[in-house]
């Protein structure tokens, strides 16, 4: 629906289509498109992807779920992670609790033009962090022309003609909070699902950064040797010598914290093990005949790296990358917990735990659910890496 409308709009009026396109809308559009095309592509190319026939175990399932949540977050939950309304009723709700919702009549608008129609549809689909048309209530009472509602000792009243009615009765629905709510009445489940994005974004981003650094430097040190090798090895030792979290905190304190800084800093401080692996592997295959012949044939250095050396060291590299990923996820959540996190684009698990800490006597679920998800993620990543290592050892 939304996609179709947007497509129509963009063919008619490109200017307003671009103007309406913000991050959230783009997110929803992308998820819906992927939701349709991903299964189709996977089905069509199922013979090419041999990892599809991998045996499934607990860890790979968890990682799969995380990836799905990463891509399809707007489809999995129908709320904005920052959504909050009627704090007095919704704050610190226990898990599995539900709240009655009173629906108000929205302002009637004449939806004639295409862009107005689209805007209405967008407001319906893309969830905003505020919705003025619903009220969370504890209890309601009907009088002849008024409705009286109770909100945690606060009493309010509304005219009946402001409320959506059905057969003379107000429309009441229930909103269900499976993991409870936090101190601002925000749904913890939604925040957890969106929090996957931060973790995976930071994880993948900084692993790519450290992979680039580790690969280049390791290759350089292995092929050239000599003074470059000595300097790079000292540098590695220096980075290994530093208690990494102090270094990360120092850099973030100096340069300010944002998503990008966190990704870059975690990437810059995690390349040492990759460097060591690449260097030792390069040294061990350097004098093999096929490398010598490749050099003799006059292949450029870059080609030798990608065509001759990378395939050989692929497996230890992947194992290391997975471990590095779990390290980075842990470091990111620790940083968010310490208040040096990734900004407020999406909620982060570490920051959720930090805010739960202040309500530890009242609301254990604010720490429990993010904590469990975090532990599961780290455990699965560790396990996946270990299994891969074992398989290759065999």
């Amino acid at each position, binding site marked *: 629906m939304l996609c179709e409308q947007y497509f129509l709009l963009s063919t008619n009026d490109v200017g307003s289509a671009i103007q309406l396109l913000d991050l959230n809308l783009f997110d929803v559009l992308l998820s819906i498109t992927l939701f349709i095309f991903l299964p189709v592509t996977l089905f069509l190319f199922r013979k090419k992807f041999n990892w599809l026939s991998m045996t499934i175990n607990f860890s790979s399932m968890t990682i799969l779920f995380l990836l799905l949540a990463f891509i399809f977050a707007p489809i999995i939950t129908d709320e904005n992670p920052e959504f909050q309304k009627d704090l007095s009723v919704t704050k610190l709700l226990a898990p599995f609790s539900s709240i009655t919702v009173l629906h108000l009549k929205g302002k009637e608008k004449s939806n004639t033009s295409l862009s107005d129609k689209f805007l209405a549809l967008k407001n319906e689909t893309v969830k905003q962090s505020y919705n003025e048309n619903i009220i969370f209530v504890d209890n309601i009472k009907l009088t002849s022309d008024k409705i009286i509602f109770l909100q945690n000792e606060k009493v309010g009243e509304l005219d009946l003609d402001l409320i959506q009615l059905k057969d003379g009765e107000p429309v009441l629905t229930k909103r269900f909070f499976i993991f409870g709510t936090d101190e601002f009445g925000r749904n913890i489940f939604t925040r957890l699902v969106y929090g996957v994005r931060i973790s995976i974004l930071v994880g993948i981003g900084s692993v790519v950064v450290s992979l680039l650094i580790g690969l280049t430097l390791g290759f350089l040190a292995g092929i050239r040797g000599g003074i470059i090798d000595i300097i790079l090895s*000292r*540098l590695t*030792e*220096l980075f*290994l*010598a*530093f*208690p*990494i*979290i*102090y*270094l990360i*905190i*120092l*850099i973030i*304190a*100096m*340069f*300010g914290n944002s998503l990008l800084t966190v990704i870059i800093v975690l990437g810059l401080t995690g390349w040492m093990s990759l460097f060591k692996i690449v260097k030792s592997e390069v040294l061990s295959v350097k004098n093999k005949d096929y490398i010598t012949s490749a050099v003799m044939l006059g292949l450029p250095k870059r080609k030798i790296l990608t065509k001759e050396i990378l395939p050989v060291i692929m497996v230890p590299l992947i194992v290391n990358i997975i471990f590095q990923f*779990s390290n980075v996820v*842990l470091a990111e*959540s*620790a940083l968010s*917990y*310490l*208040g*040096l996190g990734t900004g407020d684009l999406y909620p982060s698990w*570490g920051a959720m*735990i930090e805010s*739960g*800490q202040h309500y*530890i*006597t009242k609301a*254990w679920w604010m*720490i429990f659910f993010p*904590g469990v998800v*975090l*532990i599961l993620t*780290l*455990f699965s990543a*560790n*396990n996946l890496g270990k299994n891969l290592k074992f398989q290759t050892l065999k």
Partner: protein
Amino acid sequence: MNKDILKALLKRFVTSLLTLILLVSFLFFLIRLSPGNPSQKYLSAEFSPELKEIVTTNFKLDQPIFEQYINFVINIFKGDFGISYGYRQPVLSVVWQFLSFTLVFAALSFLTQIISAFYLALRTIRGKGKSFDTVVLYLSLIVYAIPAFVLGLSLIYIFSVQLKVFPSSGLHSLDFESNLFFEKIADYFFHLFLPLITLSLAGIALFYKYLRESLEDVYKQNFILNLRASGYDEKTILKKHVLPNAIRPLLSIAGVELGVLLGGALITEVIFSLPGMGRLMMDSIFARDYPLVVGCALIAGLLMIASNFLADIIKMKIDKRLIKGLMS
């Protein structure tokens, strides 16, 4: 032989010194690269321009960058890390007050880790394949994946909020001064119990894994079979032949372990609000006390370099073959 050891030691010392100089230079470039002039960063923003001018000349910021660098290195080696403007004291003395707690805390945790890991490994290897063994194995996998702050908060929830057995924060009670000596020690123990578990559990899992693997390896070897066949009792075999061989891989991670401990101590100190260096660093970040932040990071790096050096010396003492390895 003695000459070899001396030579190896000297070489190791020189590389440590090199790493130290690299560390100091790295910090210098970090400070200079970060946005803002050092005179803004090291002094409150409410200074008038004239005062800033004076500060700039006093800090020698008007000189070429290379001379600034030399000055920086010389000052660090003299022990002059600047003055913390939160505490209005030299950085070194402030860090010193907080460092002692972190060191004692880390040492206690290290002891706990080693002792429990040894105990568990020996217990499980004796009853190999039994239910206790499998339980500990899986538990160690899970425990290793628990982040320190989740663990610490769970412990606080269980033991402080629900059961009210242990206090949730601080180092000693309010009526601490009036207590007798033994009561004081008991009080410290009471307050440090939860933090110690928080800091040690992941390390126990790690050490256990390594110990268990190396013990198993050693027990598989032929000379153990020979000893058993010769009629030595299990205790002698364990003490004289298995443990010295199994301990080596542990030593190689013990040097790195201090870094892990310092990092873990930082988070543990924040959770339980203990007066250590990690919490000092976090507090000084939020107070924008940059000299103190840099000082803390530098001291942490210094400690790591020193502990790696020490671990290598101990390794050399235990295993003479390593001298050659370290020389190359």
